[in-house]
């Protein structure tokens, strides 16, 4: 029994670039989505849609309904859907691809840390922190860009570095100045929370998928038949839940940062365990 290592194993080299098994799986997923886009566009019509187009449209409208529950605004939902929907579908596809027979089990002998070892050719893309970190960083950076675009550069950054509020408070009562100072301190905490968002988003998904991979490997090495099946089903559910959690949190971040701050009240958001959080439709109302 070999428990999969935390880092994805390199299985090939393209010049100086090392191709890992997780990267290879991600490429397959990218290919799947390009194929999907191609299929959608081949017979795209605004008249009576075919079966395939109807199915994709139904999925889209379903997701749009979910996004509406968080944003409460159809125009905003339509702006956020491409990112949120793609996050959900891509993560879901990557996670479920991990349960395809052969992924993680078909191996190739490679040189690993000076030793020859068997490394799987395909490993779940989200079992590689690089993938989840890339998506998390993109999500958080996008949410800040959305904030800047929708409420303005200074209004956006005043949420974190409350200098504007502080200067305004100088013309008011001393108590207001104290409140403004406290807000500035809270803003600094909020700013570190933005970094924490990236860490929590990426590590949660990576941890769940990597742990699932380890769990399945252990189960198959203990009993090869029947016993691992419930765990495989569990992995499918975990894959779905994690895709939902990641995309829902991304949606909540986008929504919160695109909203205008009301007066001195600052909205903030706890981001401890995403599972319960991501499924709550009005997480943005938490203060």
């Amino acid at each position, binding site marked *: 029994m070999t428990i999969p290592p935390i880092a994805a194993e390199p299985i090939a080299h393209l010049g100086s670039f090392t191709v890992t098994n997780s990267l290879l799986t991600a490429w397959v997923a990218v290919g799947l989505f390009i194929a999907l886009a191609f299929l959608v566009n081949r017979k795209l019509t605004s008249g009576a849609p075919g079966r395939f187009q109807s199915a994709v449209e139904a999925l889209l409208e379903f997701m749009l309904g979910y996004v509406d529950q968080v944003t409460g605004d159809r125009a905003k939902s339509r702006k956020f859907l491409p990112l949120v929907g*793609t996050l959900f579908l891509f993560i879901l596809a990557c996670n479920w691809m991990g349960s395809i027979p052969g992924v993680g089990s078909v191996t190739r002998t490679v040189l690993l840390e000076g030793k020859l070892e068997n490394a799987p050719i395909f490993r779940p893309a989200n079992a590689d922190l690089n993938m989840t970190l890339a998506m998390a960083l993109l999500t958080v950076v996008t949410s800040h860009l959305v904030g800047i675009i929708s409420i303005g550069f200074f209004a956006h950054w005043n949420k974190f570095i409350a200098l504007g509020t502080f200067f305004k408070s100088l013309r008011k009562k001393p108590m207001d100045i104290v409140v403004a100072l406290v807000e500035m301190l809270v803003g600094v905490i909020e700013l570190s929370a933005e970094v924490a968002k990236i860490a929590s988003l990426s590590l949660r998904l990576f941890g769940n998928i990597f742990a699932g991979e380890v769990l399945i490997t252990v189960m198959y090495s203990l009993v090869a038949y029947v016993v691992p099946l419930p765990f495989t089903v569990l992995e499918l559910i975990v894959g779905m839940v994690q895709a939902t959690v990641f995309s829902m949190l991304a949606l909540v971040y986008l929504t919160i940062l695109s909203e205008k701050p009301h007066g001195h009240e600052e909205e903030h958001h706890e981001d401890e365990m995403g599972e319960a959080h991501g499924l709550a439709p009005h997480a943005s109302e938490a203060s």
Partner: protein
Amino acid sequence: MTPETQTSVLGALGVNWKLFVAQLINFGVVLFVMWKWVYTPLLKAIDARSAKLDKGLKDAEAAAAARTGAEKSSEEAILSARREAQRILEEAQKQADAQRAEAKAKTREELKVLVTQGKEALASEKEKMVLEARSQIAELAVMAAAKALGEKMTDAQKKALLESAAKHAA
């Protein structure tokens, strides 16, 4: 895995900037493809379809209203045509009656004229006959008198006698 990445915590978790960039590009490609060729065109198609549907429903409503209007107007037209026909029929009846009555009256008048004319002709004929008869009787009386008196009278006497006889006979 390169030795320098292994020293940090992130490196221990397998983070490697080259792979990170590669995965970022991967997701970026998926995002772009989905945005450009799936979400945008499909949402547009859905919008276009719902607009089309709305228009169709509105058109159907308008068509139904137009049909009801047309039915009503055609019914009205039929009704008015029927009324007109009735009116024309009645008028024709009236006219025919009047004409018949007029013809009857005319005939009666003509008959009356004919009868009067006949009567008049009869009367004048009768007078003529009486006059003729009178003159013949007078001539006969003169001839008889002459015969009786002999032919001893002068022409003047004959004439006076004739005249007086005619006067008596009248």
